[in-house]
Structures are given as C-alpha cells and as structure tokens.
C-alpha cells in the first residue's frame, strides 16, 4: 500500500520552507513531488526598480549563503554593459571572497549533512571549523554573512592583512585534512548512510544537465572557473575534482576535495595579490548605457547565470534574469530518491545542497 508523506513546508530537515511530497511504500520512496514558492519575494521584479548601486545590495539577498556569488554576477553583468574593467587588485579580492564563500558553504554543507544523518558531533565539528572562516569574512567585510564587498567597477573594501588570512587557511586546511575528512571517511555509521545512496548516473546527470558538485560527483568534469574563467581565475592553478560513483558519498568527497582546492587557490591569490586601486570609476558619475550583460559564475552549488538588460536613459535595469544552480539540480532529486529509503530522503535532497531561496527569489 502506498501512502503520501508531505514533508514541509516547515520541516526540521529543511532549512528553508518548501514542500516535498513523497509517495512511499512502507519506508521505500516511490516518487517525489516538489512544491516550492514559499520563498518567492519577487526579486527579479524588484530589481527593475533599483538603480545600479541599490541592485547590488538587493541581489545580495537572493541567497544568504552564496551572497557573494550573486553580487559578483550582477556586477560583472553591469560592468559588461558599461564596459568597465575592474582593476587587477579588485579581481583578486573577488576571487578571494568567492573562494572564502565556497569554503564556508561547503563546510556548512558538511555540517548540515552530518545533522541530517543524526551525526551531531560531525555537525558541531564542522560548524566549529566554519567559525574560523566566518571570522575572516567578518574581518574583511565587516559582516559575517552578507558581505557587501562587490560594487560595479570593483570592490568596496580592501584586504589589509593577507598574512592573517594565510594563517587562517593553514589552520583550516590542517583541521580539514586531520579531523573532518578522516572522521567522516572512517565512521562506519556515517558511511553506511552515504555510500550507494541517491545514485545519479553519468548519463542521467548529462541528460538532466546538472551543474556544480552534483555534476562533478557524477563524473562530469564541468567547472566554470576552468571552462569560462572570470575575475582572476585565469591566473590560478587548480584542479577540478571529479568522482564517478554519483552517490551521496561522491558528492561529499567532491566537496571535501574542493575545500582543499579552495585553500590552494586562496593561497595563490593572497600571495600574488597585486597592488593598486580596488575600484575604477566614480559611482556618483557613472551612467549605465543601454545594453545587455550576461555573466556566469561558479557558485558553491554550481553555475549561476545572470542576464541583465538596461534600458535607454534610465537608472534602473529593464530586466534582470537569474538562473540558479538549484533550479537545474532540483529535477535530479526525483531520480535520486526513487527507491530510496524514507530515512535517506532528507540527506539525498540535501546532497545537491539545495538553495530554494535562490531558486524562488
């Protein structure tokens, strides 16, 4: 006998409100239906009423976890319209912020995954590690979550003390290599929850067009930082970790390796940080001409695409369109949960690192 289980909109496994309707047979999930829209705030429409300074702060609140990605994307798109090139130091600072954000987002994900499988100690350890990153973010930007770092033409704040961040990265890498990763990979109870769960085959991943770590865990080596470098990624030397098993464990491993890669990118960026201005152009005299800008950024969750159209003689855009990684990855959840156990569903849906506030906007 099959029955329906409505998960959500306020469910402890979900940080955000959305509704997952599961059709179950006993504890086996047969199908899943996703209902979103609880987070819909009409940001794309709101963006049409904001000028180029205000829009950055608005887009930052598309998502609190990958807020830097969104400001970076909108700034890049607007810079493309206005034909502004930010100075090299600003590009490096953007890379640093993007990588710090990736670090904190991945560590956060590991913590949440730990919580979802009832591994409270893992959750606490990950968050304790994450606090180091939050400290750095707060020192650089003045806030822990919404950093307000990017602006059209550069960045708002300079990095005064690269040595402090380098020291922190050393600490973090040590913590990750010596504590978090080994503990996760040697704990039998944790591995039994991750291995072989929520498998997404390479073909399926390709046909669904999944992005980000979800794609890389299914054997698709796609990474925008490599494929279409933005900011200063062209000058960085890094690997794109790829796993082939496509299960939750593979996504875990991909994210863990990405954390290490991020540390290496940060180290390069901080040691090569060029001197100079941190922004070009005077915001009070800047005019955005008519045109279309298009920007792609590799968020911690995958590819974010912004398309911005600016009208003639206005100070507000006429259309801002956002495509977020979760929007692309969501349909994959349906294929992953089919045949899975009810107990694994929260973990499987969390393994794509969903962000419904990005998706709803």
């Amino acid at each position, binding site marked *: 006998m099959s029955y329906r*289980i*409505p998960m959500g909109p306020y*469910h*402890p*496994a979900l940080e955000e409100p959305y509704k997952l309707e599961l059709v179950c047979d006993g*504890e086996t999930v047969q199908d899943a239906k996703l209902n979103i829209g609880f987070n819909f705030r009409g940001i794309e429409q709101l963006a049409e009423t904001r000028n180029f300074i205000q829009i950055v702060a608005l887009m930052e609140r598309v998502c609190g976890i990958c807020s830097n990605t969104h400001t970076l994307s909108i700034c890049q798109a607007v810079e493309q319209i206005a034909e502004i090139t930010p100075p090299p130091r600003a590009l490096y600072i953007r890379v640093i912020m993007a990588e710090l954000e990736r670090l904190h987002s991945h560590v956060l994900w590991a913590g949440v995954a*730990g*919580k*979802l*499988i*009832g*591994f*409270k*100690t*893992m959750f*606490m*350890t990950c968050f*304790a590690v994450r606090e180091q990153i939050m400290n750095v973010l707060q020192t650089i930007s003045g806030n822990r979550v919404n950093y307000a770092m990017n602006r059209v033409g550069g960045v708002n704040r300079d990095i005064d003390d690269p040595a402090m961040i380098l020291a922190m990265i050393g600490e973090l890498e040590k913590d990750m290599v010596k504590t978090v990763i080994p503990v996760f990979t040697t*704990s039998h*109870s*944790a591995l*039994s*929850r991750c291995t072989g769960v929520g498998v997404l085959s390479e073909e399926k991943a390709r046909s669904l067009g999944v992005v980000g770590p979800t794609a890389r865990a299914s054997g698709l080596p796609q990474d925008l930082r490599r494929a279409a470098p933005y900011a200063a990624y062209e000058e960085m030397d890094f690997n794109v970790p790829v796993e082939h098993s496509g299960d939750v464990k593979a996504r875990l491993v991909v994210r863990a390796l990405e954390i290490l890669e991020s540390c290496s990118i940060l180290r390069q960026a901080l040691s090569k940080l060029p001197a100079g201005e941190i922004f070009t152009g005077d915001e009070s005299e800047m005019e955005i001409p008519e045109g279309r800008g298009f920007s792609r950024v590799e968020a911690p969750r995958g590819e974010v695409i912004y398309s911005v159209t600016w009208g003639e003689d206005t100070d507000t855009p006429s259309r801002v369109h956002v495509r977020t990684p979760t929007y692309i990855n969501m349909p994959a959840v349906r294929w992953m949960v089919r045949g899975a*156990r*009810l*107990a*694994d*569903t*929260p973990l499987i849906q969390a393994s794509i690192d969903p962000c419904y506030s990005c998706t709803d906007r």
Partner: protein
Amino acid sequence: MNATTALLRMLVFPGILFAAPAAWFFLWIERKAMAALQQRIGPPFMQPFFDFVKLMGKQVPPREGLGGFLMKLWPVLAVAASAGAVGLLPVIPRSGGFPGDLVLLLSLLELPSMFIIAAGFSSRSLWGELGSSREAILSVSYNVVFLMAIIGIAASQHTFSLQALAQSQGSPLRWLGVLAILICLPAKLHMNPFSVTNAEQEIYAGPMTEYTGHELALWELAHGMEWVAATGLVATLIAPPLANPWMAGALFVVLSVAVVLVLTIVAAATARLTIDDSVRFFWRCALAFAVLGVSSVLLMRIKL
C-alpha cells in the same frame, strides 16, 4: 517482600521520589557529557528539571474523545511502569526483592516502549504513526538480543532474582550477557545509533510530535527513569558484591553514571543508522549471541 515495602520501594526509595531526581540527573549528565565531547559548555546543572517544571506549566490544547483520554493515559502509565522498574532495583543489597523479580523488571522495562507505540498511534499524526511503526519494528528486533542476554545471565546463575544476581560472582556468560544488554540499551533509550524512533530530521519528534505540556513532561520523566532503570540493571549485573551497604550503594551510582557516559560516547561517535540497518544489526547480534550463548551453556554442561 510484603505490600507495604513494595509500595514504599516504588514510591519512595528507589522509586518515584528518588528516581525522579536521579532521572533528571542522568539526563543532565547525558546532555552535559555530550556537550563536553563536542567542545561546548552544555546545559546548566539539572536542566532537565527546569524543562520538566516548565512543561508542567505549559498549556495543553484541548483534545476530545477517546483519543484525547488515551493520549493523557499513556505517559502516566509509562511513568508508573518505569518507576516500578526503578523500584525493583537492588540499589542497596539485602533490602528486599523476591525470586523472579528480574522477569518483572524486564516486562516493566519493556512497557514504556509499548506505551510509546500506542501513544504515537493514538496521537493520529502521520509522524507519530511513522515513529510508532519504527519503534515497533525496532523493539521486536532488539528485544530478541535483550531477552537472550537476560536468559543467558539467569541461566548462568540459575536464578531469576536480582538480589541473588547482585550477590553472586560474574562468569564469562554473564559478561557476554552484559555486553549484549549494553548493545541493546541505545535502542531502548532512543540514543544514537539507533535513534530512529525520534529521528527529528526525518519524522519530527516521532510519536512525541503531538505531545506538549505536562504530558510531554511525563514522557521526559518516564524516559529519564528508563535511563535509571536500564543503567541500574547493568550496574547491578557488573557490580562486585560488597558487604558494606553504603559502599554498595555508592558503587551502584558510580557504575550507573559510568554506563551513562559509555552510552553517551557511543551516541556522540555514531551517526543514526536507518531502520533496516538497525534491524539487520540486531538480528546479526542475536545470531552471534545465540551461537555463543548456546555453545557456552553446552560447554558448562559438559564440564559439569
């Protein structure tokens, strides 16, 4: 043991009057130790007591009909059963008891989980029902190991009296039985790795989802007393017999706390297993212990 001493034991020592503070203390130790293992400070002293008082003063939504009555009834019964279980413990040896009280203790320990199952179903919440069905499946599997362990211990000592067990020396079969009980305890107490019944990330609070106010307070109390009874049982079985009753009592408490700490470390070190993994685990354990137990009994027979 006559009716008066039995009642006295159930109500005063080591029953409700003693067991309730002990329950809060054990719950507090569990939370505090968990926090210490996770680099946290943890709750202030006797936090479960404050939780209990607060819940007692919280309003309960009106529930009508038989369902509402049953929902009120189950936590009271659970508290009564676990208080009875605590009352049977020979905290201080030679203070009563009757032949066969181990069997009664077993059934009293089993009752709260039965009541939880019933409570989940009578709360008519989907999550309650899911939690109850999980609890039912789990209790069927761990009880096989649990009963096997108890029977093995009783067989090794030729008695079903807790008193006699507390007085007698250990034997290999007994240690095997204690190990088996320790494996079952996390499942009995809804701890990791077998906390599937109240897996909050999957099914909210499971059978407790709809409970609030004093009913929930009673559930928490029953849960705490289950802790006291279960750890007390283990402490009884592993404590060496001591002549001085005060020393014996102190040793009993120390051993109980040690068991709590061991369970906490296990809970902190593991993730939650899924229900089918848990069941598989317990049946494998049951098989292993059955083989070990039967073979050792046979060996003992041959020796005799």
